C-alpha cells in the first residue's frame, strides 16, 4: 500500500477535463476505460498546438514548419520504441489502431506464410479484431483456424495450447489481456512454445499497453499491436511493432505515397522501414499527441498505475461479491483492472441504461467477443473497467447505483 501514498489521484484527475462534469445531474463516474480512456490536458493541448503552430506535411517538405512537424512525429516513434522495449525505432509502425495492425499482419506476412492445410491458432477469448482477420485469411488460404480453449475462470488452457501446436501452426495470435474477462495471458510462455514449431507470434496489446510493462525484445515477440486511445491518447492512431527481420521480408500492405522508393510506369520499389508500411500522409496530429500520452504514463510509472488499479479491481470485486445475484465473469488469478459481471434475472442493457441515469458509464453487451460469450452461454455482460484516475469513492457510487437499479429491475 506504500505506493498508494506517492500518487495523488486528485491531482491526476485535475488533468482530465472531461471528468469534471455532470451526467443526468450527477457527477460523471467513468468506468468504461477498456473501451477508451479519457485524455489528459497535455494530450489535448498537443493536438491543438500542432494545428495552431506546426501544421505541415511531414518528411518531404524542406520548410521550417515541415521540419518541426516531422521532428515531433518522429519523436513519437522514439517514445513508442522505449515504451514497448523495441530494439530499433523502425520496428515501430504507425497504424489507425489495433484492428488495422492485425489486418496488416494477416494481409502481408499472413498471406506469405500460411498455405493450404496450415493452421492459425487464436484463443477462445479473442476480440473480433483478432478473430475475423484470421478467419478471412484461413478461408482464402484453405487453412484452419484453431481455438485455444479456456477454463471456467477464463484462463487459457495451456496444456491444450501445447497439444494444438504443431509444425502446421504458422501463426499464433493471442490477446495479452482480455477486454471481456480481464485475464492476462502468459505471453512469454506462449511465444517460446510457438517459436519452437516455427510459428510467428502476434500479440494483441490493446488492453495491456496502459497497465503492464511491455518488453517486445526481451519477450522475443514477432508482432505487438495496440491503440493510442486506450492509453490516454487520441483515437485513430495505433502502433504495430514488428521484428525487423520480418518487416524486411514482408510485402507492403498499402501502396501510395511515402511507402515507395522509386516509381516507374512499369513498377515500383519500396521505401525503407518504417515508411514501407506507412503509405499516404499519416495521422500526424494524433501521432504527435500520442507521445504526450506515453509521457503521461511514464511520469506516473506503470508500477504505481498497477498498484492503484489493482487496489480498485480488488475493491470492486469485493463490493460486487456482496450482491447475491451478481456473478463475476472472468476470475483469473492474473487480471488487469476489468470487472465483468452478470446480474441474475437482469438484462445487461437495462442495467446500463439505469446506471447511466445515475451518471455511471459502464459497458454492456458482448464486448466484440461474440464467440466467447457463446462459449460461456451468455448474451453479454456488464463491465466496469478502471483507469489511473478512478477512485474507491466511484466504486462506492457504482455499488449504490447497482443496488437501486437491481431493485428497480427485479
Amino acid at each position, binding site marked *: 500500500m506504500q505506493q498508494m501514498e506517492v500518487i495523488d489521484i486528485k491531482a491526476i484527475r485535475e488533468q482530465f477535463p472531461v471528468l469534471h462534469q455532470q451526467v443526468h445531474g450527477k457527477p460523471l463516474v467513468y468506468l468504461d476505460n477498456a473501451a477508451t480512456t479519457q485524455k489528459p490536458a497535455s494530450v489535448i493541448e498537443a493536438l491543438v498546438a500542432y494545428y495552431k503552430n506546426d501544421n505541415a506535411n511531414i518528411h518531404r517538405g524542406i520548410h521550417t514548419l515541415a521540419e518541426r512537424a516531422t521532428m515531433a512525429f518522429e519523436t513519437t516513434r522514439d517514445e513508442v520504441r522505449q515504451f514497448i522495449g523495441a530494439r530499433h525505432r523502425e520496428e515501430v509502425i504507425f497504424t489507425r489502431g489495433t484492428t488495422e495492425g492485425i489486418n496488416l499482419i494477416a494481409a502481408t506476412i499472413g498471406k506469405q506464410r500460411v498455405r493450404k492445410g496450415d493452421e492459425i491458432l487464436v484463443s477462445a477469448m479473442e476480440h473480433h479484431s483478432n478473430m475475423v482477420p484470421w478467419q478471412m485469411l484461413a478461408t482464402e488460404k484453405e487453412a484452419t483456424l484453431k481455438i485455444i480453449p479456456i477454463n471456467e475462470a477464463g484462463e487459457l488452457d495451456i496444456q491444450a495450447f501445447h497439444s494444438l501446436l504443431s509444425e502446421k501452426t504458422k501463426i499464433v495470435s493471442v490477446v495479452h489481456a482480455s477486454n471481456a474477462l480481464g485475464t492476462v495471458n502468459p505471453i512469454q510462455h506462449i511465444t517460446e512454445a510457438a517459436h519452437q514449431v516455427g510459428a510467428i507470434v502476434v500479440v494483441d496489446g490493446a488492453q495491456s499497453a496502459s497497465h503492464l510493462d511491455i518488453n517486445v525484445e526481451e519477450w522475443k515477440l514477432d508482432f505487438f499491436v495496440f491503440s493510442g486511445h486506450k492509453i490516454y491518447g487520441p483515437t485513430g492512431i495505433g502502433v504495430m511493432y514488428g521484428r525487423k527481420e520480418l518487416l524486411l521480408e514482408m510485402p507492403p500492405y498499402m501502396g501510395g505515397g511515402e511507402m515507395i522508393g522509386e516509381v516507374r510506369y512499369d513498377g515500383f520499389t519500396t521505401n525503407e522501414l518504417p515508411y514501407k508500411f506507412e503509405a499516404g500522409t499519416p495521422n500526424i496530429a494524433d501521432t504527435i499527441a500520442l507521445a504526450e500520452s506515453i509521457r503521461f504514463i511514464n511520469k506516473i510509472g506503470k508500477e504505481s498505475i498497477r498498484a492503484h488499479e489493482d487496489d480498485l479491481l480488488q475493491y470492486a470485486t469485493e463490493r460486487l461479491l456482496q450482491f447475491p445475484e451478481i456473478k463475476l465473469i472472468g476470475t483469473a488469478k492474473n487480471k488487469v483492472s476489468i470487472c465483468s459481471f452478470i446480474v441474475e434475472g437482469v438484462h445487461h442493457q437495462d442495467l446500463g*441504461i439505469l446506471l447511466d441515469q445515475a451518471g455511471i458509464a459502464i459497458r454492456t453487451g458482448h464486448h466484440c467477443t461474440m464467440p466467447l460469450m457463446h462459449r460461456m452461454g451468455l448474451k453479454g455482460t456488464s463491465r466496469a473497467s478502471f483507469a489511473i484516475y478512478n477512485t474507491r469513492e466511484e466504486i462506492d457510487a457504482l455499488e449504490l447505483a447497482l443496488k437501486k437499479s437491481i431493485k428497480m429491475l427485479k
Partner: protein
Amino acid sequence: MNDSIQDTIIDDFSLMEEWDDKYAYIIELGKKIPGLAEEFKLDAHLIRGCQSKVWMVSRLEGRQVFFEADSDAIIVKGLISLLLKTYSGRTPDEIIQVEPYFIEKIGMRQHLSMTRSNGLSSMVKNMKLHALAYKSKLDSLSN
C-alpha cells in the same frame, strides 16, 4: 401531426419529475405487457439489435392493423408497450403517417437513436412497412 393517443402518454409522463419514476413506470409497463409466446420468437420476426432483441408480429382485422411485440430487455419492452399503444389497432394510413414524437417528449429519445443497441427505431420502421403492405393489400381488394 398531433395524435391524442401520444398526447395522453405525454401527459402521463409529465406528472413524473424524477428519472427513477419514469423508468420505474416504463419497467412496470414492460412487466405488464403479455409479450409473445415462445413459438413466435422466431428469427423471421426478429428485429436485431446489438444488445437486446425485439420480436414483432402483426395481423390485419378489417381495416385495422394489430401488433404484438416482445423484447428480452425490460426497458425496451416497456417502450414497446408505448409504441403498441400508439400504433396497434389503427388503420394502415394512420400508422404510416403518425411519427412517434412522444418518445422525445417523455425524455427517451436516446433509446430511439441507439439503433445499434436495440431494435426500437427499427421497430417503428417495421410497423410502417407492415402497414404499407396491408395498405396495398386493402387497396387491391377494393379495386
